[in-house]
């Protein structure tokens, strides 16, 4: 039996805060990318490749991917906690989600530093 003091240890506060901080990071990145795409040069392959060849863009995109991974984990886990009532099934789903997220991040790194 686990005894928890509801107001004692800020259960969930870290997730709540992480959800908001990662959201803010992604929002800034989204606006920057939208501006580049809408008001920059027309996208051809050299323009596209050079955009992602720049150091700042790679780091910003990696930061975005890391934020997205954390954000998506908190969000999808909330959804699973709400709808999947069977403990084993929920645990299995969460493991699958974690693997998918890890795969997304790994693939992103591979794409960025090819």
């Amino acid at each position: 039996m686990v005894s928890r003091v509801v107001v004692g240890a800020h259960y969930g506060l870290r997730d709540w805060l992480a959800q908001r901080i990662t959201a803010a990071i992604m929002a800034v990145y989204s606006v920057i990318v939208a501006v580049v795409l809408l008001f920059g040069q027309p996208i051809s392959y050299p323009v596209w490749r050079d955009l992602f060849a720049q150091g700042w863009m790679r780091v910003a995109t990696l930061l975005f991917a890391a934020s997205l991974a954390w954000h998506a984990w908190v969000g999808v886990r909330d959804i699973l906690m709400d709808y999947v009532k069977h403990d084993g099934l929920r645990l299995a789903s969460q493991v699958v989600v974690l693997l998918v997220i890890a795969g997304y991040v790994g693939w992103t790194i591979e794409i960025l530093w090819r």
Partner: protein
Amino acid sequence: MSSAAAKKTRPKYLSLTALLFEIRLPLPGWVSILHRASGALLFLAGVWVLFILDRSLASQDGFELAKHYLKLPLVKLSLLVLVWAYCHHFCAGIRYLFLDLDKGVDLKTARLTGGVVIAAGLALTAYFGAMLW
């Protein structure tokens, strides 16, 4: 109190017509469930977006292939749904950040901003859609 309470017709039974036509989710409720649905959709679509990004950055040929692929009607439609999901999630998220700061928590403002978020999500989708086409 007693006379006012007595006049009320109750209990209210849940029926199909009540569920379909009488009991409606308030606007902030729509923002909320669409925030959740769009988030889930974006998570699931990650593999697709990464696939297109991967191809488009791999080579000139891959870029042309991705460009051609994105012109297919069904792909465009799917992408538009995804753009909407992103825009709605973005706008609704910003609304939640304000709610966290205790801004706009009264019913009237919350309903107003709920409507604004749904409209802004659709307007941004239309704008980006026009850019895509």
